[in-house]
């Protein structure tokens, strides 16, 4: 298990690496979006194309699951969610900074279960609050748990399963990727002539991890929009 430096404010303990990497992730995303959205033109070119392609892609996911009218209201949330997970998944692949006592200073924020739980929690909150806003509290209870009434235990379980599976799937994928990257660097550390092998393996694994990271961001957003839509969709 990798170790991370930590500090606490009162009773709450914070993971320093996660904090730094999260802030860095946010900075990268905001920097990119801010930079790409300057001097936008009706005829897109260069950086604007990239931004619009991403927005189109994310909007396409939510439109498929929610329909065109609903997806517009969630497009910002879904876009930021996708960008955050995408960048967070891949940022840890860039390098590996370890201090003494195997302290990690550089890792994907999404390789921490607390982070993915936070994201999953936000999706659940958005879904639940949207449902309450739409149907009222009683309507929400009825809509989410009591249709049909006999399915109440299943529905309650489903809430937690959705929430947990969303978080753990992302965490598992990215954490495993990080672990393997760590192991491959160890190969290079054994003897100097293992280094080419380690670098080759690292290249291959990083490519695979990029693919996994992008895929997991897509899957997370896809499932999030499905869960939200499940909560806000009117009964047929």
């Amino acid at each position, binding site marked *: *298990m990798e*170790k*991370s*430096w*930590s*500090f*606490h404010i009162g009773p*709450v*303990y*914070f*993971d*320093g690496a*996660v*904090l730094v990497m*999260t*802030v860095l*992730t*946010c900075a990268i*995303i*905001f920097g990119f*979006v*801010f930079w*790409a*959205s300057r001097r*936008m*033109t*009706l005829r*897109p070119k260069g950086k*604007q194309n990239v*931004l*619009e392609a991403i*927005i189109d892609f994310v909007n396409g996911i939510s439109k498929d699951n929610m329909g065109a009218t609903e997806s517009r209201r969630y*497009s*910002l*949330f879904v*876009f*930021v*969610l996708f960008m*955050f997970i995408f960048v967070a998944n891949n940022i840890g692949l860039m390098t590996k900074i370890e201090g003494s*006592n195997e*302290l990690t200073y550089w890792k994907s*924020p999404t390789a*921490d*279960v*607390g*982070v993915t*739980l*936070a*994201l999953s*929690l*936000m999706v659940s909150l958005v879904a639940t609050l949207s449902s309450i806003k739409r149907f009222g509290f009683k309507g929400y209870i009825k809509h989410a748990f009591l249709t049909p009434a006999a399915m109440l235990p299943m529905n309650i379980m489903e809430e937690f399963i959705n929430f947990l599976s969303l978080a753990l799937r992302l965490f598992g994928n990215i954490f495993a990727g990080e672990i393997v990257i760590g192991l491959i660097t160890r190969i290079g550390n054994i003897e100097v002539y293992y280094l080419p092998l380690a670098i080759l393996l690292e290249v291959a694994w990083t490519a695979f991890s990029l693919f996994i990271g992008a895929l997991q961001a897509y899957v997370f957003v896809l499932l999030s929009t499905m869960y939200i839509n499940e909560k806000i969709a009117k009964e047929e």
Partner: protein
Amino acid sequence: MSPFILLESAPSSMLGNIIVVSGAFLILLVLIKKYAWGMVTAMLDARAKKINDDIDSAENARLKAEAFATQRETELAGSRDEAIKIINNAKDTAESNKAKIVAEAAEEARRAKQRANEEIEQSKKEAISGIKGNVADISVKIAEKLIGETLDASAQSELINQYLEKLGE
């Protein structure tokens, strides 16, 4: 005593991470909404609107062009009809003119012929009457020469006229 401690020996930082990530995510959301999202969506909407408008205006232009084409076609057909009518008119006029001219010419020729015939007739008559006088005179003179100037000219002219009339028939 350092404020930093190893995670292994520290209590779980899960709650802290949740707070950090939620906070960071919300701040990112707000920042993007405030500084970029409005522009992006406005641009996307503007483009969607422009594409819509372009499609509409292209449709309109197409309809207009089609209407124009049919109008032109009918006009062309009209002018073709008109041209045919004009040509037919001209043909008819020419035909009737031709008939008139031919008839006039024929009439003119007939009249000229008639006039010529009359003139010939007149000249013939004049010539004959002139000859009559001359022949009478010459006959009398011949007779006088023959008979010996005893013949009374006026008494003989009756006789000569009778003779001449027989001659003329």
